[in-house]
């Protein structure tokens, strides 16, 4: 059954001791947060872990939500910061974790039965696009991911990033230009 309570009501109920209300919030926002995480991490498992971590944090800090912005905006903000921190952490990781990642990717690739050449080209393009997105500066990346993965309006993005709508527009434009520049070599090849 769909819970018709608004977010504010659910938060109030939760803070008044109705712990089950949190399940409703989690069900309402897990997919949304997962998609944002996918934009940054590009891995289903990592994104699911990130959603879990973020929602556990939200569970213990929901009392600090002041209600100045919409709950969704607050959640997006937490998710964006958590993903950016995770990416920083990954950059600082040692060689062992990277080897582990590569091995996991090789293990996951076993089932794919495509034409090897076609598959190689597709993989190369995918890797190049992923690298291009990942190499964007944090603000451009965030604006881009929120728009493309979540279809958010510039107004909503500006509320999440706490910047003006004009700045969001500029970030999006610069982001797209940068992506074009970084992917030119694919077309050339």
């Amino acid at each position: 059954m769909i819970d018709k309570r608004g977010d504010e009501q659910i938060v109030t109920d939760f803070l008044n001791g109705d712990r089950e209300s949190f399940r409703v919030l989690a069900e309402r926002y897990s997919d949304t947060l997962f998609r944002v995480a996918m934009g940054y991490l590009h891995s289903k498992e990592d994104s699911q872990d990130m959603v879990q971590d973020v929602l556990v944090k939200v569970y213990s800090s929901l009392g600090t939500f002041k209600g100045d912005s919409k709950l969704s905006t607050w959640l997006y903000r937490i998710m964006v910061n958590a993903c950016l921190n995770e990416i920083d952490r990954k950059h600082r990781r040692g060689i062992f974790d990277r080897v582990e990642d590569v091995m996991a990717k090789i293990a996951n690739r076993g089932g794919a039965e495509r034409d090897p050449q076609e598959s190689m080209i597709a993989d190369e393009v995918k890797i190049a696009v992923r690298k291009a997105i990942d190499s964007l500066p944090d603000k451009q990346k965030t604006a881009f991911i929120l728009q493309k993965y979540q279809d958010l309006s510039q107004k909503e993005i500006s509320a999440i990033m706490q910047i003006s709508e004009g700045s969001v527009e500029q970030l999006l434009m610069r982001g797209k230009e940068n992506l074009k520049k970084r992917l030119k070599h694919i077309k050339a090849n």
Partner: protein
Amino acid sequence: MKKEKWDNFNELDLVDNYIKSERGIEPDPSLVSKLISTIEAIEQSRAGVNEIGITGANEITKSRNNQIFMSALYRVAIAASIALILFLGVSLGSSFKGSVNYEMSVNINDNQMENLHIYTADE
């Protein structure tokens, strides 16, 4: 044909296609249930710490230490396997001696086998 297709292709189309494929990935349906059980476990461990105090905290520290140990062990295992692969590669490589031909070579002087004079001499 393929070239034409690429010429009309915008770099941002590649990005859009990539994003479309990633947006198609759905989280596991059990994600929320897992989350709720994680939260319950955390709540229980908190309650446990409150109830049994230091003993509970010690248990948590012990389990954390265990996790750290397992993670270190895992890394050592990866390092050992890489070292083993390198060692095997080097030792197999250096054990290769190339093909040795033990057959006797036939020593025939074929200088006189076909005397061209036979064909070129005027009769």
